[in-house]
């Protein structure tokens, strides 16, 4: 009887310790997140917040949400991320958008004027539809975010399967390589709607900051 009471007390004590531990952890992460965002919101720049749990990306400035895009699917691999701002160092894709060059040559402009109006009007501009839908964002601390479109169809399905295979086969090898090099390694895969992927590519420029949580 006495033993049972002692055991019950130990159990309750353990439960209390565990629950307080969880609470402290949750509190600390929320506080870290607030600190990280406060640091970014003080500057007159746009920043991004990727919420892995709720599958959302927020475009923010001064603490306010400018745009919110849903993430269709998230895959996470590697080291846990600290609630600190990461800087985007490089955007890479197979098809980098190319800017049009204006030709100030008068003769060329005159030739253009003489053309048939239907033929003449062709808007030369870098627009959202010119942005890639599949790309990788390289952040500091060896964090990589790969973005792929969530399109349907047979070709898209095959492409998606190939990507999944690549993800599961190549990630372990990257992990070993970076462990040998004593570097952290984190890979995040995001599946977004086509327009959302293009919008993120447009707005998230090199040097931009993101908080991942």
């Amino acid at each position, binding site marked *: 009887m006495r033993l049972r009471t002692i055991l019950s007390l130990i159990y309750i004590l353990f439960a209390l310790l565990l629950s307080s531990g*969880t*609470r402290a952890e*949750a509190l600390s992460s929320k506080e870290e997140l607030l600190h990280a965002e*406060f640091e970014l919101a003080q500057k*007159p720049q746009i920043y991004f917040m990727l919420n892995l749990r709720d599958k959302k990306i927020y475009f923010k400035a001064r*603490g306010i949400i400018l745009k919110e895009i849903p993430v269709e699917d998230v895959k996470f691999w590697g080291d846990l*991320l600290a609630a600190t701002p990461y800087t985007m160092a490089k955007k890479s894709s197979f098809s980098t958008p190319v800017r049009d060059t204006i030709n100030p040559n008068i003769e060329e*402009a005159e030739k253009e004027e003489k053309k048939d109006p239907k033929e003449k009007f062709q808007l030369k501009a870098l627009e959202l539809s010119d942005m890639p839908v599949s790309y990788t964002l390289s952040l500091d601390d060896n964090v990589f975010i790969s973005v792929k479109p969530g399109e349907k169809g047979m070709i898209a399905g095959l492409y998606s399967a190939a990507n999944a295979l690549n993800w599961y086969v190549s990630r*372990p090898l990257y992990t070993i390589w970076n462990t040998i090099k004593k570097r952290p390694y984190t890979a995040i895969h995001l599946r977004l709607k086509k327009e959302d992927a293009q919008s993120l590519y447009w707005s998230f*420029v090199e040097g931009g900051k993101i908080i991942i949580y």
Partner: protein
Amino acid sequence: MKKKILLIALIITASLFFLFEITGWYLASRHASAVKPAKEDASLKKRTAKIKKGKNGSLDERLRALSPKGVYIVIDTSGNRLYLKKGAETMLEAVVSCGSGNILTEPSGKKRTWVFDSPRGEYQIKTKVVNPIWVKPDWAFVEEGEEIPQKTEDRMESGMLGDYGLAFGDGYLIHGTLYTRLLGRNVSHGCVRVGDKDLEAVYKQTPIGTKVILF
């Protein structure tokens, strides 16, 4: 014999590959997944919220204090949309034209290069003008293949910027346009072109100092 060696080499390679894969998976599995949802019961959530309010309350308030006071403008340069906002409420949504992203290089002289992007980040309205006169910058003459004039009066052109102009810094303006059919497309030299009705509403509701956030 050759076949046997080849088979052994293949088995060794495959084994090594699997060994690497398993090691990689093991190393990665040492770190808990960040996507795992937090397991919290309702009472714990309540208690945590109470503590958070006490401990992080000031930080929350400080973050909220950074958000624009009163009316502010948000411009989506990729979607070519302007939002006139007050807090979380959207008072007006307008279709606009932002920067084309084109490049212009001076063919002779200093060989300067201009990139016609709309700026990104936070700005504020510095001046407001009715019937603004466009003082054409150098690039406007280079683009037309014309000689850059020396006198300021030779650069002035009225009627190009619509009825109102709101300058938000670095030479950029929110102004009207003659090319209304191109609203919704990226065609400007970096300024934000707005249709007449929307421009009037924006002009009337935004005092000098209004924050303009472009993304």
